[in-house]
């Protein structure tokens, strides 16, 4: 029963958010698909008959499969550790082990390129290198998915196994089969994000679809070829993401836990578990940062940093504004999703996962096609608003998923109690629901800010001439600037990203020690 039926304030607020969502997130991809259906056949002949494109498809698929496999191999054991092994200050450990996913992948690629050798080896610019780097950045997704799935398992199922079998066998035969759907879904999401990635293959000179789309548009100004190249990638990403969403069911937006027991026998794994976390964090975070620091120490002056002040300020400002707008829209959509019927919730969740999977370069091409036109709508093109639109298009889905999960923790009966007391929807949301979403809102804002601050694939296509964000600045100066200067900028960017992450880690640590 809809207790708020007929409340105009609800209709207006959620309706507005929905319109913003459709315009920013759905229209760019829809525009691409619509254009494709009406495009000239010649453009498709080029794409379909070009044997090089078959190689492109092969390389793209290998990048996705390799990354999904390696990231799952690293992330799943760590997820098991976080869920079952009682480590001290687990909140801090979780933040540290999850931090790489917030680091823009091209920063790690930059460290890889500067990894100790005088001359680039055959591995420096290679597909395996791209796979390793993307795996080190994306494994936290597998880790967190595994941890959440394991926490949802009734600990007694494992205890019943531990009465009759050793821990390793219980893990293999009882625990892992139960979390398998979540692990597979996470692997599919990683696959999609890997094939959507632009910065790492671009930097390591690996030819994949995203780099070809960028080249077709930015180097050859061939918009119809860029669109034609986008479609296979878009279809692949959307299809795989849809399978992932179906596998996940309502796991993404439900934070309900069953008996979160940590069977006592897993306590004996504490030391090897901690050692494995330290090793992975050292390789994924500490090592790249140390390489960049070493490289930056060779800079003769900080001219590159001072010259990039505009880009840094621009990035901070745009990311902050973008994150705020993203969260404002996502709060409304997350609330609507959490309070929708089971079927609608499933469908919208699948849509959000699919939209999050749309590659950044495709969003960039879609936004250009949509807004680069004469008339009143074209007024935005060539302004910083295009960067904000790119951020909204990319990150509203993920922020909505976070906030829908948070909203579900607030029981409907609290709103019902308010409604029967004669309080309207707007006041109920403001006074009852929102105060309970504070942590979720803060988390969504930090995630949106960090992701926007590192965004490259769409930004580099839609940024107005003469305007640059820090990622664009770094990416464009790599070819003609000493690596030490580039390293200085990369470290600056990492510092801005890890600032909020460190703050969250400190808060988590304080909460645990209470």
């Amino acid at each position: 029963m809809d207790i708020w039926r007929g409340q105009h304030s609800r209709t207006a607020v959620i309706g507005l958010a929905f319109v913003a969502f459709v315009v920013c997130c759905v229209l760019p991809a829809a525009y691409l698909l619509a254009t494709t259906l009406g495009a000239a056949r010649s453009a498709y002949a080029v794409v379909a008959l070009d044997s090089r494109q078959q190689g492109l498809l092969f390389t793209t698929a290998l990048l996705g499969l390799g990354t999904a496999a390696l990231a799952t191999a690293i992330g799943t054991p760590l997820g098991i550790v976080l869920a079952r092994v009682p480590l001290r200050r687990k909140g801090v450990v979780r933040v540290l082990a999850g931090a790489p996913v917030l680091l823009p992948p091209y920063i790690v690629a930059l460290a890889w390129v500067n990894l100790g050798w005088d001359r680039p080896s055959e591995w420096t610019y290679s597909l395996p290198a791209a796979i390793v780097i993307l795996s080190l950045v994306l494994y936290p997704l597998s880790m967190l998915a595994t941890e959440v799935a394991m926490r949802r398992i009734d600990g007694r199922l494992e205890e019943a196994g531990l009465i009759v079998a050793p821990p390793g066998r219980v893990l293999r035969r009882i625990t892992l089969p139960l979390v398998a759907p979540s692990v597979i879904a996470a692997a599919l999401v990683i696959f999609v994000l890997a094939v959507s990635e632009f910065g790492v293959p671009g930097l390591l000179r690996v030819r994949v679809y995203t780099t070809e789309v960028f080249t077709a548009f930015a180097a050859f100004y061939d918009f119809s070829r860029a669109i034609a190249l986008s479609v296979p990638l878009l279809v692949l990403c959307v299809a795989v993401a849809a399978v992932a969403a179906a596998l996940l069911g309502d796991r993404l937006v439900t934070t309900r836990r069953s008996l979160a027991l940590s069977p006592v026998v897993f306590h004996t794994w504490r030391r090897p578990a901690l050692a494995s976390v330290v090793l992975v964090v050292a390789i994924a975070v500490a090592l790249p940062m140390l390489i960049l620091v070493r490289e930056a120490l060779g800079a003769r002056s900080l001219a590159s940093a001072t010259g990039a002040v505009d880009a840094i300020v621009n990035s901070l400002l745009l990311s902050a504004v973008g994150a705020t707008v993203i969260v404002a829209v996502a709060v409304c959509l997350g609330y609507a999703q959490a309070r929708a019927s089971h079927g609608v919730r499933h469908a919208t969740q699948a849509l959000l996962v699919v939209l999050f999977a749309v590659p950044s370069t495709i969003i960039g091409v879609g936004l250009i096609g949509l807004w680069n036109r004469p008339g009143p709508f074209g007024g935005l093109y060539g302004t910083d608003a295009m960067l904000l639109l790119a951020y909204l298009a990319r990150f509203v889905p993920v922020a909505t998923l976070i906030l829908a999960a948070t909203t579900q923790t607030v029981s409907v009966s609290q709103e019902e109690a308010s409604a029967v007391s004669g309080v309207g929807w707007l006041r109920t949301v403001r006074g009852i629901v929102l105060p309970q979403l504070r942590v979720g809102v803060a988390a969504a804002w930090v995630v949106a800010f960090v992701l926007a601050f590192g965004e490259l694939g769409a930004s580099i296509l839609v940024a107005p001439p003469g305007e640059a964000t820090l990622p664009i600045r770094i990416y464009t100066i790599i070819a003609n600037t000493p690596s030490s200067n580039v390293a200085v900028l990369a470290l600056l960017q990492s510092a801005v990203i890890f600032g909020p992450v460190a703050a969250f880690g400190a808060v988590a640590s304080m909460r645990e020690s209470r």
Partner: protein
Amino acid sequence: MTAAAITLTDVTKRFGSHVALDSVSLAVPAGTAAVVLGPSGCGKTTMLRIIAGLEVPDSGQVALDGATVSAAGRVDVLPHRRKLGFVFQDLALWPHLTIRQHLDFVLGSMALSRLERDRRAQDALALVRIEVLAGRLPHQLSGGEQQRVALARAIVREPRVLLLDEPFSSLDAELRADLRSELARLQRALSLTMVYVTHDREDATALADCVIEMRAGRILAVHRHPTRGHDPA
């Protein structure tokens, strides 16, 4: 006098500031059916979990057949090496395994020939009268059938001690009485040492050689059942 199969000596367990068990000492002789009776939160389940090795005592020690299996802050013998059967309150049946696979999983940890494994699985299914359900998954069974599966899983490896944590609490009175007499039959047939946790006096009357009354983490009294044998000290 029969030797003690289970011995607890001054066992204390705290969860934060809550004292779940307060210097509990107990000896259950081999072959005895002991029923632990008490209100919710009195420490019955914690005591059972400590005997099983699923919790570690903060102080005191636990021995099975005279050998120490855990003591203050440590587990000397892991749960699966204690030769116990455990029936959980919510049964904890594995949703992805058929009934036969439940038993195979348990027997898979033992060095047995395939023939012996098959025999034991068949025997366990026959003992609790669910042979025809072997190929089904837990969610395809009724509540009573699920209880029988949990019992079969607990006895299939022929344990010396059977621990039961309010196993029939969710059943209606008729089914409950039925399964109670089934359990009493099994306990006698297999000469099991049994510790049965409940807050229902009827369970105690029907099953117990002795009744252990608990309150607030302490043992208040131990009563010998008039119609049955042994007396825990």
